[in-house]
């Protein structure tokens, strides 16, 4: 049970937006950038996205090829572990379901490791990137995704904390086990459900 902080009135529990998970606040129009690496310069003429690992048909798409797949959009909320949430945003790209259905995960596949052109990695249960829960996106609110937010394309897994939505994503490796990615090796939770406040290892 939390202790009251002497003198702190806060902004009132009643006014709190029901879309905010516990411990989160509404950042409004802002969108903080909290990357741990040097921002890369990626050229869409050489950009690729690959699904490999435990699949029947490892597949690589170029920028033009991935744009030829069935488009898909997400409208909703995103939640960063550093406690800001951004409500009512829209991203456009392609569903991860579309990519996985081409590569066909083999029996026993249970997890994926998302990786970025920078070397960043993050691990996810396969169930968290299938059935309409994850996208590779290149548009934010109708405009090309800016490089500091992961452009030209990033992973989007909006029901988990946003470090799972790897910026500058380069592919998914399908695996038959879980293993920690970059932040997960550095103290953060393996799954990261904001509604369960799975922020750090052990939460």
């Amino acid at each position: 049970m939390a202790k009251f902080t002497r003198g702190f009135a806060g902004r009132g529990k009643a006014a709190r937006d029901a879309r905010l998970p516990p411990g989160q606040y509404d950042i409004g129009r802002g969108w903080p950038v909290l990357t741990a690496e040097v921002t890369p310069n990626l050229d869409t003429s050489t950009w690729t996205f690959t699904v490999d690992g435990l699949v029947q048909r490892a597949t690589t798409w170029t920028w033009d090829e991935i744009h030829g797949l069935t488009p898909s959009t997400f409208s909703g909320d995103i939640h960063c572990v550093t406690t800001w949430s951004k409500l009512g945003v829209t991203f456009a790209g392609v569903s991860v379901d579309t990519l996985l259905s081409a590569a066909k995960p083999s029996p026993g596949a249970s997890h994926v490791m998302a990786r970025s052109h920078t070397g960043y990695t993050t691990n996810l249960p396969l169930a968290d990137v299938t059935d309409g829960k994850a996208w590779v996106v290149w548009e934010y609110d109708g405009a090309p995704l800016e490089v500091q937010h992961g452009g030209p394309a990033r992973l989007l897994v909006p029901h988990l904390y946003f470090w799972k939505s790897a910026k500058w994503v380069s592919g998914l490796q399908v695996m038959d086990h879980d293993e920690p990615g970059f932040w997960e090796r550095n103290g953060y939770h393996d799954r990261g459900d904001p509604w369960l406040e799975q922020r750090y290892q052990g939460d």
Partner: protein
Amino acid sequence: MPWVEARVVATHDETPSAKTLRLALPAPSTHRAGQHYIVRLTAPDGYQASRSYSVASAPDGSNEIELTVERLDNGEVSTFLHDGLEVGDDIEVRGPIGGWFVWDGEMPALLVGGGSGIVPLMAMLRLARATGRSELVQLILSVRSPVDLYYAHELPGPETAVVYSRVAPPGSARPPGRLTPDDLEGAVQHDGTAYVCGSPPFADAASRLLVGLGVPVDRIRVERFGPSG
């Protein structure tokens, strides 16, 4: 990692908009230089707000840590920490957090900070000095003007340099201006890690300069400070 109650044992202003809180924890802090703690405030109706703040003090085995808090306009946590919190109050904290932007005091480190981005780098500088290993560290700090400089009395030394982007102190040889390759070139090491901390535009500019000076991308660790009030 539980929430614990920390008692405010001292506070002092670093600049007109930055305040250092000295907190006593229930047990010795296990933080590494560069890590942060989360501060959580709870109102009588149960409303809570929490934010992350870097530890400015070096790991020293004691149960006291220092957090330096920049006051942000309309920042519900930072304005309370500046205006409402008093010595003797208790606040809830959780940490230490973060295993990436850390320096353990053994390998060469180039520390490049912009404004309030000095805070985690200060823990690294203090660790280097406290352990007699200052030769491992080079710190280049960019601030707008002398009034914006944190830890002004403690920073000067052969291993540190401050550059001013808008207003330089009287008599400065370097005219005010943004960080340039010349500011960094002499500090670049060949076998160390660079730690860059500041606003996203500063972090991007500084890390691009380092890449331009030949520092490999995988030897640059970046912490971008967001406007998270």
